[in-house]
């Protein structure tokens, strides 16, 4: 398998929110990085996990599968925790619509909008 071409960095703008900034290519090789970022973003008080896709270059169907798997992990902590996304290009918004991920993940244009909605 090829090496991961994605980097995930985590920010905590508040004790209740964790933001995962996704840069690069989200494919099957990004699994470890994404799950580690989630573990880092999700401490005892985190209510919102926000995936920031503004640095996304490319995502294939295995990448969508990873987002589904992450959603299930977050939902295990529901209703205390929920998954949101921001920064998706129109193309990837369409893909979330195609795969019906948009029905389970709140999608916002900007980080500020997502955080305001989760407050």
């Amino acid at each position, binding site marked *: 398998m090829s090496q991961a071409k994605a980097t995930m960095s985590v920010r905590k703008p508040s004790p209740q929110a964790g933001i995962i900034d996704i840069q690069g290519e989200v494919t099957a090789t990004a699994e470890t990085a994404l799950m580690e970022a989630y573990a880092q973003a999700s401490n005892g008080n985190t209510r919102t996990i926000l995936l920031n896709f503004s640095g996304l270059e490319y995502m294939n169907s295995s990448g969508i*599968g990873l987002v589904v798997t992450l959603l299930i992990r977050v939902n295990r902590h529901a209703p205390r925790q929920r998954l949101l996304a921001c920064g998706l290009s129109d193309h990837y918004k*369409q893909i979330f619509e195609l795969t019906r*991920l948009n029905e389970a993940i709140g999608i916002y244009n900007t980080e500020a909008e997502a955080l305001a909605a989760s407050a």
Partner: protein
Amino acid sequence: MTPQPIPPPEPEEEPHFASWALPVSKLKTEDISSEAINLNVNGRRLTGPIQGFGQMWQKTYKVRLPGVSLTPHEIVDVWRKSFGKFWPKENKFYGSVIGIAPGEVAVLNLAGPGGIRGPGDTPFVSTGVLVIYADDVSFSFMTPEGHTFAAMITFSAHEEDGAPVAQVQVLIRASDPLYELGCWLGVVHRMEDAHWHATLTNLAAHFGVQNAKVEQKNRLVDPRVQWSEAKNIWHNAAIRTGLYLMAAPLRWVRQLGKRGGSKS
């Protein structure tokens, strides 16, 4: 004569954008073989693992192809072009004339437990898939309402320890409580596993690797069932295919009546 201004070039679409299908509200089959019993696809919504009822599983089936000097790209190219040919003979894949390409819908006529088929070689379940994604080294399907699994299925090839590997990875939930019962009893999972083992064995044999061993890894992603999706049973393709086949004599009588009426 004044020169016409040259219009600015159209922004080029990112090449990988064409790998994805466009969103669809309802599925529609086109150019499917008349041999297929085409039920439970047209007008159905697409479902993924999020919309299913049962426990969510990720299963990975893979076969090594030692001695095969083809690239992952070449393997996937062959796989895409002859996709249905590698299926076990009791299950039929009817693709469109375009084949495995983003946005194409295929009809599946599947046998029941133990490979049983109905009278006249009719399928136990008629359902379908939508090709949601296809690139050089992978392609993926999602399933319509009523399919056994609300699923995302990815076929790919890569290199591992110097040998090509062909892989099927499914992310699935049984669509409704009846199918989930079948999973709990082991019947549905056995059928699923047998299907992909046979497919990969046939693919390996095509490339000259006889008696290839298929490795399988299962991961229970979500042990919970989603009771909110129990209503999916309304679309159950096995029940609807069974009802369709049971009503066949009535359709024959009606057709005979129409023919008789048109002659008089």
